[in-house]
């Protein structure tokens, strides 16, 4: 869900060359997006995919609304290279904003075309007609033959043969009957009754089960392989890429354990830095430095300040930790190779697979099927590459299921980062100078070519050079406050010790943690309440509204018992998208350092709301997942490899730790919709850190806020 480049920043397209229309092209053929079947079903072709966020339903709502058909008539076809437009990745909370708008215009164009056809057939003008659930009617003609025609009847199986119009009339918000309603998710009934719903459930005739065997350490090479012990399984070896294949899944699992492999110790990558020294190590790597924001003269302002504050915050590597390890199925008939995957982008994956397999793209088909929730680039693309390589070799359908350890070891992580801040205050407690220095790699490394896949390295393709462009690490590094003299500088790292890529909100998670913690540190130095301090520097009424709403709902300022504290954080996601403010209430056990989060209040403004329950669900999910990341999550590694390989070594939040969550959605039907899949992920960690400080005086500047870290921060606090 992550790395669409912001419009202001030129970056190489993430979409590889594709024959199908893409949303950047114009004009576009309506028939590529929408078709009406003889039975009245409206088939919608979307290049976006369902990642567990409900976009299938929200996009269907948009089409149903503008076309004036019931939701039940819509059938969504999503993410199939053979059938759907190329819409790049489903990422960055951008689906509703971009793809939703295209579909809205497509549906409005179709409605207009159908009205024109009906007017000519009924020999009237279009403005005499009304549309009702896929039928066009003359006044009083609901049941009268000759005064009522259906969409399907008008088209008679034919095509629209016109381009999507930018001028076809769109409904006004007050006309909406489907947009803005909490339509139930279309995908959930199957998931609640054990019907096939996931790529894991795909079974093809004659399908074999495979497990891929890799060394713990990426870059090690295969020295020897002894397959003598295998009875029910066979070994496929392509260079150093090794897999076991069997008719029965448990046989493949047993074979993966039984196969005797020796890997070289002299990997082509150096040892990892000791985990404890990770941030020191990052700080001393060569960087490419780019200023993101420079206004006024931050250094001079800091020099003239009467009070100077500085603090450094750190972020560990964290895992997507999808609840179901990645899985893919592939088949090859000698001509066409077809892969089913829970990838975030079927076209970009096809282009990268073409490079890996050395096959032309027109002999590859990539179809999306859902996986377990994905929050960015997890193992989905890599397992698709595994399956594709094996299918080409076997010429038989093959299913590759990663183990839990495969997923934790293989999925790209969100990167460790460092954020160093300085701020000054003048004699009146006003901000005089603000600087932010961030150390981060690019957060976008989705596969484009063979060497980007794990499998690519093992079949002998060298690891690609760093891409030379930087995305995502600067997200929300600038604050939304009107500080006059400020400088935001990113020190881009060419590489980091663990393979890293896009995860929910990219660098914004860590950057907002640092910024919003530091705002509280400055407010403290100024002797001003954190709410009041923020409002002094927020002029935008929508920003003020979320901050004030969250504060009011949380009872900001009301007294609390000893050991309990409230903290707040605010951000405008990407500085241009949704507004979100969070207030957390926590209790700290100062003896153990344990933090108990009792409640979280969020005020959220993402413009127009397509499906309020869908937005609420996203916000709730963001809060819980980001709380898990703030309190518990850190990928552990030795100097050789990742050692967080299961749920005991990478614990996530459990039911007993989930707080009460209160959400207020500030709807703006008059404004365009912006994404809701990520914004509320960025304000949780700082709100909790600020609440911990309010509860006990301990300032935690390192994620996650484990009891040990809270205790250490308490001990470092002057009595």
């Amino acid at each position, binding site marked *: 869900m992550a790395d669409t480049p912001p419009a202001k920043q030129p970056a190489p397209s993430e979409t590889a060359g594709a024959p199908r229309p893409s949303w950047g092209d114009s004009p576009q053929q309506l028939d590529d997006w929408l078709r009406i079947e003889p039975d009245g079903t409206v088939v919608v072709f979307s290049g976006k995919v369902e*990642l*567990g*966020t*409900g976009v299938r339903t929200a996009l269907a709502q948009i089409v149903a609304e503008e076309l004036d058909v019931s939701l039940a008539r819509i059938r969504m076809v999503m993410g199939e290279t053979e059938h759907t437009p190329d819409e790049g990745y489903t990422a960055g909370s951008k689906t509703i904003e971009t793809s939703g708008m295209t579909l809205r215009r497509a549906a409005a164009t179709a409605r207009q075309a159908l009205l024109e056809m009906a007017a000519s057939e009924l020999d009237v003008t279009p403005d005499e007609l009304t549309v009702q659930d896929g039928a066009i009617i003359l006044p009083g003609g609901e049941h009268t033959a000759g005064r009522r025609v259906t969409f399907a009847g008008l088209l008679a199986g034919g095509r629209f043969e016109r381009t999507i119009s930018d001028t076809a009339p769109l409904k006004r918000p007050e006309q909406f009957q489907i947009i803005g309603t*909490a339509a*139930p*998710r279309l*995908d*959930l*009934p199957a*998931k*609640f*009754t*054990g*019907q*096939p*719903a*996931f790529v*894991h*459930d795909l*079974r093809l005739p004659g399908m074999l*089960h495979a497990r891929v065997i890799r060394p713990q350490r990426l870059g090690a090479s295969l020295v020897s392989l002894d397959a003598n012990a295998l009875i029910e399984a066979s070994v496929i070896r392509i260079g150093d890429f090794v897999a076991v294949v069997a008719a*029965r*899944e*448990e046989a493949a*699992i047993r074979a993966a354990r039984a196969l005797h492999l020796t890997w070289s110790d002299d990997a082509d990558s150096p040892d990892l830095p000791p985990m404890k020294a990770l941030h020191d190590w990052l700080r001393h790597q060569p960087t490419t430095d780019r200023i993101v924001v420079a206004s006024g003269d931050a250094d001079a302002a800091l020099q003239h300040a009467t009070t100077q504050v500085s603090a450094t915050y750190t972020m560990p590597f964290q895992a997507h*930790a*999808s*609840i*179901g*390890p990645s899985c893919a199925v592939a088949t090859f008939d000698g001509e066409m190779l077809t892969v089913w995957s829970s990838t975030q982008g079927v076209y970009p994956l096809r282009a990268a697979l073409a490079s890996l397999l050395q096959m032309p793209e027109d002999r590859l088909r990539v179809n999306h099927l*859902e*996986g*377990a*929730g*994905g929050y960015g680039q997890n193992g989905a693309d890599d397992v698709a590459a595994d399956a594709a390589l094996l299918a080409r070799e076997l010429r038989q359908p093959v299913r590759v*299921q990663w*183990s*839990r350890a495969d997923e934790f070891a293989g999925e790209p992580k969100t990167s460790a980062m460092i954020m160093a801040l300085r701020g000054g205050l003048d004699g009146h407690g006003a901000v005089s100078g603000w600087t932010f220095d961030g150390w981060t790699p690019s957060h976008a490394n989705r596969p484009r070519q063979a060497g980007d896949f794990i499998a690519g390295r093992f079949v002998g393709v060298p690891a690609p050079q760093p891409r030379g462009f930087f995305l995502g690490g600067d997200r929300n590094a600038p604050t939304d406050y009107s500080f006059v003299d400020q400088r935001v500088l990113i020190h881009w790292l060419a590489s980091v010790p663990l393979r890293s890529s896009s995860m929910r909100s990219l660098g914004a998670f860590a950057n907002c943690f640092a910024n919003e913690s530091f705002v509280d540190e400055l407010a403290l130095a100024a002797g001003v309440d954190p709410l009041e301090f923020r409002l002094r520097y927020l002029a935008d009424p929508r920003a003020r509204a979320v901050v004030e709403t969250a504060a009011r709902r949380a009872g900001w300022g009301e007294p609390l018992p000893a050991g309990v504290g409230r903290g707040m954080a605010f951000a405008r996601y990407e500085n241009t998208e949704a507004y979100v403010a969070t207030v957390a209430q926590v209790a700290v056990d100062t003896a153990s350092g344990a933090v108990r989060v009792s409640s979280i209040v969020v005020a959220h403004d993402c413009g127009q709301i397509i499906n309020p*329950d869908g937005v609420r*669900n*996203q916000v*709730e*999910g*963001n*809060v*819980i*997942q980001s709380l*898990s990341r703030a309190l518990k999550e850190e990928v552990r590694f030795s100097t050789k490899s990742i050692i967080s390989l*299961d*749920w*005991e070594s990478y614990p*996530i*939040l*459990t*039911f*007993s730790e*989930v707080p009460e*969550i209160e959400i207020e959605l500030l709807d703006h039907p008059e404004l365009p919709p912006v994404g809701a899949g990520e914004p509320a992920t960025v304000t949780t960690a700082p709100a909790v850190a600020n609440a911990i400080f309010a509860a006990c005086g301990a300032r935690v500047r390192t994620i996650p806020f484990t009891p040990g870290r809270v205790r250490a921060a308490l001990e470092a606090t002057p009595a």
Partner: protein
Amino acid sequence: MTITITVDGKRHEVTASPDTPLLYVLRNDLGLNAPLFGCGLEQCGACKVLRGAEAVMTCMLPVGDVDGASITTLAGLVEDGELHPVQQAFLDEQAAQCGYCSNGMIITIAALLWRTPHPTNEQIRDALDGNLCRCGSHGRILRAVRRAETLMWGDENG
């Protein structure tokens, strides 16, 4: 060896090595989709089914140990096209994001509400702590438990 199991009311004879985890027999021999592979380590709960009225994980449970047992999967909770109250409550509350953990959640809650018709909040959280959800649907799932309780047994007070 040949193992006899009754799954969702149907008797099956399956030929498999007795140490095969039940999960693979259910998914691959019987073609069922409800129990899902999550960890293979009994750490997450995605693979749960009911053995009798008890929720059990199947990813390590040897099929040889359940010879003769009666198993109910999520699909088997639907009776004559009618959803089980816990399934209905999940739909009413839209209690999922990706839905990968839903199977284990629904199975666990069904077992809980048979054993303890009116659980305390603590009992609910205890029962669900062995089931992991990564998308953060916990709040909805907890609300679905209360709704299911009412659908199954009515309000505690009348």
